[in-house]
């Protein structure tokens, strides 16, 4: 009897305890792993750069100065200038906005849609599950980039459409992970107890199932952010994402980087470096988050 009374208040506190332990686990992981700390710092810099782009950028990213076209890196223009004399550093700083914005929105849409499909699939099981999951199989049979290309080709090239295409690519994988988490959460005794005392489905989903799904979904979302930035850059590089004159990193590489690569290799070097660092930061941060919150997802 003593054990029962001792456990009851603990169970009531579980939810807030989970929150605290998650933050603490992440904090411990970041402190213990230097790579985790470095990636968190890089992401912070990236986010600040995007927010403060207007005050950080030394020049207007769209202002052309033909008299200094293709100027090599110097004190005035640390990353050089492009073929019509625009400052490459300012364009990269403003480009961080497009990359982050597309990444965040695409992953946000993809995660929410994937979560709804996964919840429906895992919670309802049966025919709903079968239909939804086969549909996801059908989408997943098309490689992500090719699917994104096909979607953009129908919707016409633009930053917003690239974002929608990337979100579509994210949905199937996310729905599958949420479905798995829901299926295993349903095995818990407290879900059975909630069903037995006649709780309504929305309440069971929100209070008992959803808390089990948040950790894997956040881990996957952080890893997807890097990928989303990469796909946006690839679509823009291929000419079907962000359109000129907007400074997208992928577009900068294809429009000027390739055309003038022999005279001005910095035009290809710096935007690519920016993409790689952003993707690297999100990949490493995703790894750290996974180690801290959900080691089962490893490998």
């Amino acid at each position: 009897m003593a054990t029962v009374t001792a456990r009851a208040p603990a169970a009531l506190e579980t939810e807030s305890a989970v929150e605290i332990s998650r933050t603490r686990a992440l904090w411990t992981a970041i402190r213990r792993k230097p790579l985790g700390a470095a990636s968190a710092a890089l992401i912070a810099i990236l986010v600040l750069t995007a927010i403060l782009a207007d005050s950080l950028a030394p020049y207007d990213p769209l202002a052309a100065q033909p008299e200094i076209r293709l100027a090599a890196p110097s004190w005035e223009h640390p990353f050089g200038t492009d073929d019509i004399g625009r400052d490459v550093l300012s364009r990269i700083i403003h480009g961080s906005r497009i990359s982050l914005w597309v990444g965040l929105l695409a992953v946000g849409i993809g995660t929410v849609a994937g979560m709804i499909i996964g919840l429906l699939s895992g919670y309802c099981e049966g025919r709903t599950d079968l239909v939804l999951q086969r549909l996801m199989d059908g989408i997943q049979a098309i490689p992500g980039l090719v699917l994104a290309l096909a979607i953009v080709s129908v919707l016409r090239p633009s930053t917003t459409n690239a974002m929608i295409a990337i979100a579509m690519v994210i949905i199937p994988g996310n729905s599958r992970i949420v479905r798995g988490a829901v299926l295993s959460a349903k095995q818990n005794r407290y879900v059975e107890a909630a069903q037995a005392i006649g709780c309504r489905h929305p309440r069971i989903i929100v209070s008992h199932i959803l808390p089990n799904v948040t950790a894997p979904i956040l881990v996957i979302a952080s890893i997807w952010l890097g990928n989303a930035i990469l796909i946006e850059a690839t679509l823009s590089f291929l000419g079907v994402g962000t359109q000129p004159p907007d400074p997208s990193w992928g577009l900068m590489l294809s429009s000027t980087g390739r055309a003038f690569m022999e005279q001005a290799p910095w035009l290809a070097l710096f935007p690519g470096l920016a993409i790689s660092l952003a993707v690297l930061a999100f990949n490493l941060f995703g790894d750290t988050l996974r180690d801290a919150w959900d080691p089962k997802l490893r490998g």
Partner: protein
Amino acid sequence: MYKYAVRRLLLAVPVLLLSSLIVFGLMRVMPGDALTALMGESGNIGERELAKIRKDLRLDLPYHEQYLLWVWQMVSFHPGDSIFTGEPIAVSLAKAIPVTLELAALAMVLGLVIAIPIGVLSATRQDSASDYVGRVVAVSGLSFPDFWLGTLVITFAAIWFHWIPAIGYVSFWESPLRNLQQFLLPAAVLGFRLSAATMRMTRSTVLEVLREDYVRTAWAKGLEGRIVVYKHALKNALIPVVTIVGGQLGVLLAGTVVVETIFALPGMGRLTVEAILFRDYPVVQTNVMLVAGTLVSLNLLVDLTYAWLDPRIRYQ
């Protein structure tokens, strides 16, 4: 094994049908009909020509008939003509597919040649300098965009060695040397990207297997280190690696799109990108479906290999 193969084959059919429905639906998702929207934008096609094209492409038929017709065209290898060049799609595909196949196969081989030895070395010398180097290489492979690596390779090859990739594709049978010269760099760029995930997986599975009892027994018997690692540990460690390599096929096919565009190789990827830029939707539709079909078949092959390597899977 036979039963398992048949079951997996039967599961692949509905997936393919669904993908075809998705691709078909996608191409007709726009309000109005796809062609009017796509072609009308260019502004240089008159109303009468548009009606003729619509009739030629059978876009005047009801959707279900269009779908069935398209599936029949795909199955009978006559996917129609390109709107833009007028060339039969089958003809352009016959030229493009060998290029992509060669690139993909070379990239796959190069990727494995880079990944497996470095992965094993990383695991056997865990936490040493070579392990750290290996891990950094793997993470950078995952983070460097292949179009950037490709651009850099071309740029620095031109600046340092005054070497520019030859324009105009030459098949392997015409001139093997020139063909390999054309393919080696793109395949290396693609292979490097592929090697990252395989390398990480090889490292972690080898580490896991090296801690197994039977490996300890092998050490205790006094076997040579190389034999323990390569003969006893690696064989079991490679089973999950096969799955990862299978999962990479999508990355490989998508990678060919980018790499072919950069290195001007006339393969499937470049054909698709060009078709998208020119809004040549019969070509886009056929190519996307073909890629999906290839991926599903290759995944089936990977599953069967997996079942062959690990008998437990067949009985699940």
